């Protein structure tokens, strides 16, 4: 079965839109970190927020009136992915006419890790401080994992399959896998895969307590010992069809690792399965944590000549959105034959790996590898 990328949307701390964000990444830019605070504790944490200006032109919709940031990011990315597909020839030479798509034949697969944490915290705060009688019936529905997907389905008018898939950073790949499985059904013409996340002080504190968060930028890759990552937020959307310029060649559903030192062995299996002589680009999930060493060890074993890139020093760790962002980078690298420069990597730390330098990087295929922070790994290969 042919599975192809027909449209993409991107909402990031470096702005919105595939071309706009891509150009800034190619120029070696990185997002600005801000400090986030909360009345719970005095400690402040750095994070990479999505600038509010990028959502100014989001069309009004009743579902977005009270929705939390994650739903707005997702709506913007999803609408952009559909808009981006307008100019692409899709089915048997016919142009895609968005108005004529049967919305019952479109599947929406939503990838998320932490979900609507802003409203969940507000809801539970009221309960913890003032008791159950203070619980808000307006906030509670927005705490449910599939609330953003429901809003997006309502905005796009999708009446067919809608799934919210939950996991760690690898969840975006698992959502792509679900889309592939759904597209085996002749009753579905398109799958819109959206990964989204919103940042909050509570998440920063939790990842800090988990010894994974760095207290000031930048995110430095491949350091020993690892210094940690910084959270970000935003969304990525990929419209999958049976025709389009970039092919999703193969998705490896991955596996789970019980201990962090097992991650590398799982990654080796994925790279071995996805390996292809055309695949000269590897978009990794290295983020300044234990993930870096796990990926480095596996890459040196299986794909030592690949040019590697991670967007996390530039855009931060967006967890549920991160793997979709990586897929966008891989697709853009194949389309433009370029990869942005890998930021904040000390040549003394990177050893024998070949980091992206910002120069031309032609390749017929690219591999996306995602090793999550909570036991899941997965990967996929794109080609042009």
């Amino acid at each position: 079965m042919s599975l192809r990328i027909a449209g993409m949307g991107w909402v990031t701390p470096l702005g919105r839109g595939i071309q706009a964000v891509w150009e800034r990444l190619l120029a070696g830019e990185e997002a600005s970190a801000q400090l986030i605070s909360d009345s719970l504790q005095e400690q402040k944490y750095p994070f990479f927020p999505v600038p509010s200006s990028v959502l100014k032109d989001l069309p009004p919709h009743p579902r977005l009136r009270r929705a939390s940031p994650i739903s707005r990011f997702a709506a913007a990315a999803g609408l952009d992915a559909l808009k981006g597909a307008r100019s692409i020839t899709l089915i048997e030479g016919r142009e895609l006419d968005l108005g004529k798509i049967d919305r019952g034949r479109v599947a929406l697969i939503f990838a998320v890790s932490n979900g609507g944490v802003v409203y969940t915290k507000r809801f539970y705060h009221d309960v913890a401080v003032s008791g159950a009688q203070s619980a808000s019936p307006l906030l509670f529905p927005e705490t449910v994992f599939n609330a953003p997907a429901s809003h997006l389905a309502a905005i796009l008018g999708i009446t067919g399959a809608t799934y919210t898939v939950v996991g760690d950073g690898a969840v975006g790949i698992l959502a792509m896998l679900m889309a592939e499985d759904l597209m085996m059904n002749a009753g579905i013409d398109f799958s819109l895969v959206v990964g989204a996340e919103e940042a909050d002080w509570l998440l920063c504190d939790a990842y800090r307590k988990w010894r994974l968060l760095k207290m000031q930028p930048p995110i430095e890759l491949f350091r020993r010992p690892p210094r940690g990552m910084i959270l970000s937020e935003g969304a990525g959307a990929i419209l999958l069809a049976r025709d389009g310029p970039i092919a999703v060649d193969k998705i490896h559903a991955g596996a789970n690792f019980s201990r962090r030192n097992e991650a590398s062995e799982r990654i080796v299996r994925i790279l071995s399965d996805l390996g292809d002589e055309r695949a000269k680009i590897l978009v990794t999930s290295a983020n300044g944590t234990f993930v870096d060493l796990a990926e480095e060890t596996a890459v040196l074993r299986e794909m030592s000549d690949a040019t590697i890139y991670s967007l996390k020093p530039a855009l931060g760790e967006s967890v549920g959105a991160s793997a979709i962002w990586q897929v966008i980078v891989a697709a853009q690298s194949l389309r433009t034959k370029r990869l942005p420069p890998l930021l904040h990597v000390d040549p003394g730390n990177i050893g024998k790996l070949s980091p992206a330098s910002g120069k031309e990087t032609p390749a017929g295929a690219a591999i996306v590898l995602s090793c999550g922070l909570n036991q899941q790994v997965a990967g996929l290969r794109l080609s042009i």
Partner: protein
Amino acid sequence: MKEARVVVVAAGVVSPLGFGLVETLEALRAGRDCVGGVTRFDVEQCRCKTAGQIADERLFDHRPKGRKGKRLHRASQMMICALGEALAQDSRFEPDLTVIGTTSGGMSFGQNYYRALHRHDELRHAPGWIANYPPQKPVIDAQDAFGISAPCQVIANACASGTNAIGHAFECVRSGKYERVLAGGYDALSELVFVGFDSLQAATPERCRPFDRNRTGMVLGEGAAILALENLEHAQARGARIWAEITGYGISTDNFHLTQPDPSGTGPRQAMERAVASAGVRAEAIDYINAHGTATPFNDAAEGKAIAELFGHVPISSTKGMMGHSLGAAGAIEAIFCLLALEHQFLPPNINFRGGDEAIDLNIIANASRPAKIDIVLSNSFGFGGTNASIVIQKFAA
């Protein structure tokens, strides 16, 4: 590609009705009311004060020994129980993929963490709470306990999650891409979710009376269930025991409201129509429907309307009166009820029923189970966000 037939070769369950298929069957046949006063957290300020709960002491008996076992969330312990029972029936079942539904993961650990922060308490346990909070963790923990490392897709489609998980797993095997998939659902009772449904006034201070004309709302429950699905040819080739066949799945999304169903019943109707079409059977062939039946006025009215329009007078029951609504686990647990009903040829009861809506003519299996010849059953799950899912399960016939 020729579509494969998909069979259930093993199943495991833990719920307020009991641990395992034997206890569950006994309680289901007896129409036992397993809903009681909430003991896990303070509900003094809530309207609703009851739920279907699983006793911790019995869960502890099943958890792995040592420190790791003690750190596991109750949801992980439930999943270990359910998966353990399924694998005890078929120890050679090695899944290519695991698809599990849930709504809240290890939510109570998140609550512990937030309360500790709020009170400026000792946060020594915080890393453990945080690491064991995510929804994929109980699935991975359960697989770990039995040496399985299949990739996990965790579906969080609110109350439809469990049926969505089984339905998606079914389609994965039917397409021929996968030979064996573990499917199911889990959810453990948590204060945040309990208080949330209470705030919406969806939870009742009275008994849970699905489809009753004087129904006043739902009660929550908890549990986990696992079904091992396999391509029929492979199952037969290795001599696996076949419990039943899954033949159809329907999913729909209605965009009416985030928490309320479209009163017309369009969403549920589409899901049921698609499931029946997917199974290649006519609506008249359905012998029993395990309804979503939460006992909220809106849900039961919309679902009842759709059932009456599509299926006429088919026997239906909601089993949530017995154990409460276990959210992401509900669809999986109710699929197991359907397996038991097919295996033992009886209709599970809709307890606490006094009389139906005059506007909707339904054939409710009121208050007591009864023997019946049934070959094809339908199970429904509908959730927040307008997600609707239905599956068709049939008695296996070679």
